[in-house]
């Protein structure tokens, strides 16, 4: 469960202070599929960094599973990311010259999962992400964009996080492949009840989620159920 209370983020630059997020408050319960939508410069990336425990807010409180993430140190944040959050990036960020399995097993290495368990869990995650078994031993740079993003989704899934954060997951993909990746996220939400937050600037993409939070200039413009789905 995610609870944001009056979150703000202010950056100090040489010429003065820039307010990127202003008093955002919302709650996301377990098993939701939420899109955070907004044009570039709206503060959605900053919000994602905070939700993903990569950064802390300047003001307000962010509770992830009842724990206030806003007051944690660097290493404590790393601990939160390791156990509770799975990232899917626009540019995939896979290890080059490594096999698919090795990429998916990497979070388990940091989580201290015994070696014998890792491969089975990675295979399960890859199956859930919809990648064919024939690719498991391929090097990541031999895959297509859609396949790479499925590997990235599997990597986000593998440690069973409370929250999967997908930052423009279709940004580097053509429409058709993007559709397949979004369908995969939908399936994961529907069948496995993973909590998913999708960050995007495209309405088409956002409409795959069941709830859409629109932000503009650092504030929430609207927060409503996606009528097309529900």
């Amino acid at each position: 469960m995610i609870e944001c209370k009056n979150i703000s983020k202010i950056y100090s630059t040489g010429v003065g202070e820039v307010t990127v997020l202003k008093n955002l408050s919302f709650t996301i319960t377990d098993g939701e599929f939420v899109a955070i939508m907004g044009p570039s410069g709206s503060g959605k990336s900053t919000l994602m960094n905070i939700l993903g425990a990569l950064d802390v807010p300047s003001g307000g409180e962010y509770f992830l599973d009842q724990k206030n993430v806003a007051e944690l140190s660097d290493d404590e944040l790393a601990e939160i990311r390791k156990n509770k959050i799975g990232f899917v990036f626009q540019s995939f960020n896979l290890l080059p010259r490594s096999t698919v399995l090795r990429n998916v097993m990497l979070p388990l290495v940091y989580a201290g999962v015994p070696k014998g368990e890792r491969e089975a869990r990675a295979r399960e995650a890859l199956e859930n992400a919809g990648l064919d078994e024939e690719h498991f031993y391929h090097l990541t740079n031999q895959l297509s964009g859609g396949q790479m993003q499925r590997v990235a989704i599997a990597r986000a899934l593998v440690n069973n996080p409370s929250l999967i954060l997908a930052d423009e997951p279709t940004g580097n993909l053509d429409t058709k492949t993007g559709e397949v990746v979004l369908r995969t996220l939908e399936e994961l939400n529907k069948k496995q009840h993973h909590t998913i937050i999708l960050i995007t600037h495209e309405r088409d993409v956002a409409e795959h989620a069941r709830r859409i939070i629109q932000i503009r200039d650092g504030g929430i413009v609207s927060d409503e159920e996606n009528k097309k789905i529900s």
Partner: protein
Amino acid sequence: MKIADLFEEIFFALFANKARSGLTILGIVIGVGSVIAMIAIGQGSQSSIQSNIQSLGSNLVQVMPGMQKSSGVSSGWGSSQTLTNEDAEAIVAEIFLANAVAPEISSRYQITAKGTNTNTQVVGTVSVYPGVRNVEIDFGSFVSDQNVKSLSKVAVLGPGARDDLFGEGADPVGQTVRIKGIEFKVIGVTKTKGGSGFGSQDDMIFIPLSSAQKFLVGKSYVSTINIQAQDAESMTALQEEVTSLLLARHNISDPDSADFRIMNQADIVASASTITDTLTLLLGSIAGISLVVGGIGIMNMMLTNVTERTREIGLRKAIGAKRGDISVQFLLEAIMLTLIGGVVGIFLGWLASLGVEKFGGISTAVSSTSVALAFGVSAAIGIVFGYYPARRAAKLNPIQALRYE
């Protein structure tokens, strides 16, 4: 992160960039290899010089005449004729620390045999000389007490003199040589000592002391008294006793104006060691410079690595790697490079010193200390030059690192 996983990550990273890792390792290989080889050459020459000095005789103390001064003009060390047979006999009789005493008088003469001639050192001495000066007999026998007593005209040839006069490997026992026109009968040949550095100890002819004094020099002084101490520890005490005995015999009260001087083998070894230590230090520090250059190569590679793998570092942090995990990984990568380089370098340095020994004729000695030193230094270089890049990697902000282009 577990140790085994850490090493797996490191080997993946090093293998991913084989050419670059290889070249970086090469820098360390050359550094460590040259340190090993240079120290081996330095220590090898040290031990060969020391064994040369040891081959002069074991636990040897030598008494030599002092400077002769006539009306203020010095003729240099060893020119006076102040040491006598009686001095040697007094040492035998009164100093119990002396194991054996062998006085000698030596000088260069023209020697002729049938149709050949040579110019060599003729040493008049007594029967205990071989024991004192580590001389061994190859053919026949050495000068005996009887020879000395009866002024026999007999000669024992060194292998060098034998080769010049009778041909290599010949057995000249029973033949005659002429020294200063006087015939001497050859009764033996000594074994080769192969001395180098301090002049050949093989190109010599030994005759009885009394014969040399009577027939060749015409005076009864000695040019050196060789004394063998009982053991290495008693050499200093022996030296002191001999000094006071000879001062008393020569009626000299001030030790500074002694008409003789005493050389202790340990002193020679010590002063030669100072020279070779300096040599080893010099060679080692020249090689050490290349080791430092290799270390800078490591740092350069690791910095490039950190820049190139910025996104990977960002990703690792995003999936839960702590600062410590990242810095340990990069630090261990650097240490791994230097350790691989160190092991290969030690092996190649050892090969190089074998090569120098075989083809360059310089004796070398690879010691376990220098191996341990090179190993430790290469690990230290990994830590020192890997620390900064590793810290830089660990301090990267994951948000910026993930967006790095």
